[in-house]
């Protein structure tokens, strides 16, 4: 994967101060609009937008490669020992009756899994036994054979602070009052539906939810599906096909890539959030047409996400909309992480950039993250949604959403919109924005390298070296903090990171505790790679004290 860093050691910063000399009018354009908001709106919209991707010092990259090289060498050595018979092979083996079949897996495909992942896999798939709220309980598991098998000791690790679950607005809760309607629907409907939307499972509850989603987003109509991943992979083929062009961002999620592949359209990838690359591709595509035949393209679809979950960066929505209008392309916006989490009232990136929702042709999102349920939706104008009702793979062949899950989304959305009579929803949105600002500012001040936009509640902290990644995860668990670490292949090989997902349910004390431990662990493991001057955060300090 290509990294998006500038030349070695130089900071790439899009701030209001520097843009006066650049020709990028669009950057200034959306900034000015934000200032029109009144003082009652949350802190987020008053600050200039920063997206920083600092590059680490050279020695870090060298050490990272060395680390991987060493592990690979050891991997070959261990494979040799296993082949020779000096070491026991713990992996499951093929059946004796099928030994002469073509092997199901090639040895080199599993090299990485066998020799690197196995040694450190206690940091993933950690089972929990409570609700995934701001604190949770982990099941204690130990391994007697270096992570090949686990066994549960029977004890739990209680009250671990959860900074890994996607619980942005804190709707992962089991408060009996809040869940009253969900319990009622479970009692009335049961949990299954046993049919598809087009056949016998189009409940009036689903229609109520779709109406609510359309109102929430400010569009004409919407349609909901049972799984967020499947929303992308089953609906993109219904919208584009052979003879169409898809311009997809470099860091798009697997579900978008799978949907694009299944559609049969031509896919071209533009550099992450890079408007020049996108414009160049648009011009070239329209001028030369389809490959080899040069027939004009039937449709051009630009696929982007609201917040990219591995980078924490936010899409440059106003610029993309300007480009889309100029070249008559269509825009598919996947707001899996940004719906409910950004914007003054939680309406997502369209609200953050103050963009008319009619400009985004297809708005897609999921209910897993900010609404504490599961499933996805696609919203837009009525013609689009009617087309999907007839042609979506999910409507014809896959089961509808479960009734209690539907009710959970309905009550969460009503809470955010304020329809249940209180301002609990808007309080949570503001709390999340405040938590985000505070956490990011404190981390930067400590000297960690953080990627992403200042408004995004997804905070990736770069750790680079594989051994440090693992040590960090284990050390934080010792201190009762559950973090998520990601490495290759989900990220570029030299950019392994820890990813924090903040929640409106985190209190200031919890965040302070996490930051305190981060400080200690950062010093212990030498993780504070940043070499920037730290003058940008003073005003935030004033806000919080």
């Amino acid at each position, binding site marked *: 994967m290509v990294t998006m860093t500038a030349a070695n050691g130089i900071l790439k910063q899009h701030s209001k101060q520097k843009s006066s000399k650049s020709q990028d009018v669009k950057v200034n354009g959306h900034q000015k609009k934000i200032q029109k908001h009144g003082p009652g709106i949350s802190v987020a919209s008053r600050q200039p937008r920063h997206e920083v991707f600092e590059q680490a010092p050279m020695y870090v990259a060298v050490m990272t490669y060395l680390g991987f090289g060493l592990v690979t060498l050891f991997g070959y050595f261990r494979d040799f020992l296993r082949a020779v018979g000096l070491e026991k092979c713990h992996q*499951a083996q093929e059946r004796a009756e099928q030994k*002469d079949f*073509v092997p199901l897996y090639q040895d080199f495909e599993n090299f990485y899994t066998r020799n690197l992942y196995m040694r450190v896999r206690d940091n*993933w*798939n*950690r*089972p*929990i036994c409570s*609700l*995934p709220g701001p604190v949770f309980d982990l099941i204690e598991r130990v391994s007697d054979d270096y992570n090949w098998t686990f066994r549960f000791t029977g004890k739990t690790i209680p009250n671990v602070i959860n900074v890994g*679950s996607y619980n942005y607005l804190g*709707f*992962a809760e*089991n408060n009996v009052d809040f*869940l009253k309607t*969900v319990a009622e629907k*479970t009692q*009335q409907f*049961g*949990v*299954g*539906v*046993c049919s598809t939307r087009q*056949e*016998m499972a*189009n*409940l009036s509850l689903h229609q109520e939810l779709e109406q609510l989603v359309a109102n929430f987003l400010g569009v004409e109509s919407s349609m909901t599906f049972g*799984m967020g991943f499947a929303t992308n*992979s089953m609906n993109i*083929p219904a*919208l584009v096909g052979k003879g169409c062009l898809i311009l997809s961002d470099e860091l798009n999620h697997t579900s978008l890539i*799978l949907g694009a592949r*299944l559609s049969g359209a031509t896919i071209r990838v533009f550099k992450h959030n890079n408007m020049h690359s996108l414009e160049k591709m648009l011009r070239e595509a*329209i*001028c030369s047409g389809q490959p080899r035949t040069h027939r004009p393209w039937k449709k*051009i679809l630009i696929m982007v996400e609201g917040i990219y979950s591995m980078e924490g960066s936010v899409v440059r929505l106003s610029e993309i909309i300007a480009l889309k209008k100029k*070249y*008559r*392309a*269509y825009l598919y916006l996947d707001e899996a992480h940004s719906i409910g989490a950004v914007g003054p009232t939680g309406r997502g990136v369209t609200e953050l950039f103050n963009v008319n929702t009619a400009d985004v042709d297809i708005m897609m999102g999921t209910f*897993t*993250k900010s*609404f*504490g*349920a*599961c499933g996805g939706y696609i919203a837009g104008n009525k*013609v689009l949604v009617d*087309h999907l*009702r*007839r*042609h979506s*793979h*999910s*409507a*014809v*062949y*896959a089961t509808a959403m*479960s009734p209690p*899950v539907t009710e*959970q989304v309905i009550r969460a959305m009503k809470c955010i919109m304020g329809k249940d009579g209180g301002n609990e929803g808007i309080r949570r949105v503001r709390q999340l924005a405040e938590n985000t600002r505070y956490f990011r500012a404190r981390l930067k001040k400590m000297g960690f390298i953080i990627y992403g936009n200042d408004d995004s509640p997804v905070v990736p902290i770069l750790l680079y070296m594989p051994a440090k990644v693992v040590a960090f995860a284990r050390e934080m668990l010792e201190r009762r903090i559950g973090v998520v670490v990601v490495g290759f292949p989900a990220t570029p090989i030299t950019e392994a990171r820890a990813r924090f997902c903040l929640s409106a349910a985190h209190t200031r004390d919890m965040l302070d505790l996490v930051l305190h431990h981060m400080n200690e662990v950062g010093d212990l493991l030498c993780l504070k790679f940043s070499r920037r001057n730290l003058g940008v955060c003073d005003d935030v300090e004033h806000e919080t004290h």
Partner: protein
Amino acid sequence: MAAGQQWVLVEMVQAFYEAPAYHLILEGILILWIIRLLFSKTYRLHETYKLTEKEKEDLIEEWQPEPLVPPVSKDHPSVNYDVVTGPPSHKIVINGKECINFASFNFLGLLDNDRVKQKALASLKKYGVGTCGPRGFYGTFDVHLELESRLAKFMKTEEAIIYSYGFATIASAIPAYSKRGDIIFVDEAACFAIQKGLQASRSFIKYFKHNDMEDLERLLREQEQEDQKNPRKARVTRKFIVVEGLYINTADVCPLPELVKLKYQYKVRIFLEESMSFGVLGEHGRGVTEHFGVNIDDIDLISANMENAVASIGGFCCGRSFVIDHQRLSGQGYCFSASLPPMLAAAAIEALNIMEEDPDIFSVLKEKCKHVYHALQDIPGLKLVGVPIAPALHLQLERTTGSRDTDMQQLRSIVEYCIQQNVALTLARYLEKEERFLPAPSIRVVITVEQTEEDVQKVVSCLKEAVSTLLK
């Protein structure tokens, strides 16, 4: 002769030493250049025209895309869904009328089972609704681990893995094992989820006629001959057979013992999709392997969804650890998607409990299926498609009008007539342009354990009336 050659060699070496340096360097560079040209790919000259800026601007001005979605006629049947108010259980309220439900896949009647609901409520109180993360990032709950071990024990396999959506189960399992260059033999009547899995895998797909073992054997023999021509490639090409236990499109059963014989003869692996037969066939509901008495280890992978007999949401794959464990890192629907909500998993566990406690339920269902099958045999004007043990049958028109649309309209009018008479039926829905082998239009009739003798008589008389009134 040898001495002469040797003498020439010495002279050559001498000349080599005496040549000036630039000469040697030049020769060296030329040799390297020749080597590079020999090994570089041949290229074709691209068309060397270049557009001027003005031409580009003109092209951009002129280009008009198609509309994002094609315009639709208002009376297409699928735009207006039938609305169900209230739970889709035995008595279903559809479009305002209360009907007997012959259309939901609620085979064991577990949709409104009180025990299941209580367990789901208890789980709701403890865990809330969503899991807020994929399995790898704190989305693994003890409920998931329990459900996986219960399913593995129930099916008598080593391991099971659960997915949060039934469609995604087989559609993620096939591409996890079969990659570009591998070969998959699949039945023509395979359901849409399997077709999407095949498309995502990018392998060579070879279709054999539905349930025709001779056709499959012919294809396997041809492949064997191909392999003998190119043994090196054959040693790394994986081969799979994908079949369904009980086909949803044709309501019949696959001949599993013959398939196992072919598996060992031609060394292909079998993937079995049991969405319709799990919880239906077999003495204890273990599916088509129990029905035929086939050793479960002979099937490499069994995949099923929990949305039919189990009346929950999601799906699972089970088999040996050697096979299943691979999906934990390569199944796309598993790694990149949030896990199953715990209350749905708890409901599935309780459904499994009920299935294990009361295996008579399967023989009751079997009897009812046979009864309905024979009752629907003699409706004039409609042809029954399926086998007596299938819980979901198809009724097609005996005489087709020639146009699919008219056939669909006729069947739709029959369905609407039945709904007016308080019997809920549905048309079997397909995406006409996307299916590879589009089945004929039909009405789906689903049999559940909750239906009584009177219900069956009512649906038969309703259908007979509808046909005699509407199909003239």
